């Protein structure tokens, strides 16, 4: 799947290069359509990013225009308590909780869009295995094929914050 993504990215870059070289004039129809398509896709993602309903769209392996990062972490704390704990930690972090589903024990946190970053969606779901709670983290970019390790860094930081918050 990663190979397909690399080929797709290379083709996309070549296409954009070709289009820019061929139709550099800003009044060209193809150029305008391309710009509108890219802008439209970005705005569409921005609009739907804050809902857990679109989790599958962002985390799907077929969505080649977002970068995904999955990790699992377990804690010997009950699911309900861990859920509340993670909410507390995220509220004190760079992420912001935008949607929660307390019945399914799922939550969505986002990082804000800035000049440095297109933003990131972090989906966390909690599952019980006896007394252990297994948390599935899935971090996706909003509009970025490669995250350049930023998702991993943010995940590590958040995990450190969770671990440190267990010192009471």
């Amino acid at each position, binding site marked *: 799947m990663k190979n397909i993504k690399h080929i797709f990215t290379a083709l996309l870059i070549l296409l954009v290069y070709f289009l820019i070289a061929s139709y550099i004039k800003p009044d060209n129809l193809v150029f305008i359509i391309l710009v509108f398509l890219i802008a439209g896709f970005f705005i569409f993602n921005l609009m739907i990013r804050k809902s857990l309903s679109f989790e599958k769209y962002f985390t799907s392996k077929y969505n080649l225009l977002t970068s995904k990062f999955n990790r699992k972490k377990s804690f010997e704390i009950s699911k309900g308590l861990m859920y509340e*704990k993670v909410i*507390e930690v995220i509220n004190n972090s760079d992420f912001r909780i935008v949607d929660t589903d307390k019945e399914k024990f799922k939550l969505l946190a986002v990082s804000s869009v800035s000049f440095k970053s297109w933003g990131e969606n972090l989906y966390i779901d909690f599952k019980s295995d006896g007394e252990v709670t297994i948390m599935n983290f899935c971090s996706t970019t909003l509009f970025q094929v490669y995250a350049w390790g930023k998702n991993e860094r943010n995940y590590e930081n958040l995990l450190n914050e969770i671990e440190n*918050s*267990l010192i*009471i």
Partner: protein
Amino acid sequence: MSIVVNLDIMLAKRKIKLKDLSVKVGVSTVNLSILKQGKAKAIRFSTLDAICSALDCQPGDILEYSGNGD
């Protein structure tokens, strides 16, 4: 772990709810619940001091060494 947290016993003795203790010591109920269940990684002296002050007890009333080592 060999350290047992007897916070629930002290709360029952003092007839104080976890929520009220949370307000008194300035620690969230989630954190006190984690501490009560013995799932905390560590406890700060400042937290222990605040709990002992609020419950009018000694650290030994809250923490106990069981010696099981599991």
